[in-house]
């Protein structure tokens, strides 16, 4: 003869089953939905390209040149390993503006191991590029 089960135990199991369902459903939704392609910003690399050129355009002389010098020129200059793709002058940067935009926006540059751009630097250079890269 089996001993009688404690009534509290039965009550806990009865209450726990829906709870398990709810938790598992929630986790399933979270796990499944977060694996969708990340155009909604769920990827590590943000979709933060300015939709249009703002009224105040970042200055090449005052803003962009310093960012490029700090973040790019150690490789992309005459003495760097990417000396055939220099970015250390305005004309060089302008001639490669499309590649610079896609590489920075896609978080492929600066490369892993190099000091990353700050959010403010990233926004400044992306905005300047979207604004047709003026020599201002």
């Amino acid at each position: 003869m089996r001993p009688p089960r404690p009534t509290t135990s039965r009550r806990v199991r009865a209450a726990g089953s829906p709870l398990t369902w709810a938790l598992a459903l929630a986790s399933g939704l979270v796990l499944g939905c977060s694996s969708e392609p990340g155009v909604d910003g769920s990827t590590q690399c943000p979709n933060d390209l300015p939709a249009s050129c703002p009224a105040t355009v970042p200055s090449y002389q005052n803003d962009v040149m310093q960012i490029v010098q700090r973040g790019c020129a150690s490789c992309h200059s005459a003495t760097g390993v990417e000396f055939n793709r220099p970015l250390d002058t305005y004309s060089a940067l302008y001639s490669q503006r499309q590649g610079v935009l896609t590489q920075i926006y896609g978080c492929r540059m600066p490369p892993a191991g190099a000091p990353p751009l700050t959010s403010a630097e990233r926004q400044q250079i992306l905005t300047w590029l979207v604004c047709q890269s003026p020599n201002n």
Partner: protein
Amino acid sequence: MRMARWLAISDAVAVRPRQGLVAAGGSLLAGLILCATGCQSTPDPVGPVGGAVVGALDVHCQDSGAPRVQPVNASSCHPTFDMAGGGQADMGASTGSEYGETLYNDEGNDDECKYRVKFTTTPVRKGSAVTFTATVTSLATNQPVTGAMTAPEVFLSETHPAPNSGADTTESPPGTYVIGPVMFDAAGKWTMRFHFFEDCTDAVEDSPHGHVAFYVNVP
């Protein structure tokens, strides 16, 4: 009272651990199935499908009818730039941009004539997740190019790159690279540039580094 309830919970977990696991697993599976059918915000799009833009054949690696091939040397991936030792500076393709001309059709050679690249896509539509499959073959050896870590660069214009969509690349079988998801957020004539061995320098002629770009129509 509190202790009695704790004991009861322990008892419940101990008495039916397998049922609990089964219930949790089943619930998780059900959740995932519900998610797969329910959490997509938009239905699969329909309508015209784009793809490679048909046009002139790529002949930039032909010199007076003879093939021009640039052999690749793995040791030139990270050179020491001792040009006296035989390395040649790579000043880019001879014509067009420093990446070479963008190509029509679904196959062509990289700008420096190192690789032959063919690609296919899943249906190309604005707003859809598109997967590219690129097959890369060495022009020098006619063998699959493995370990190229092919990376996509996708743009509509010089100020309009494709949205960041978490695109990833897997290689299977050797020399075949599956890249996606790629998202096109506007209709038009896009450029899809494949980069190969991007961690290798592009400054030496026989470095494995390479790139080729194709036009892709998005209706």
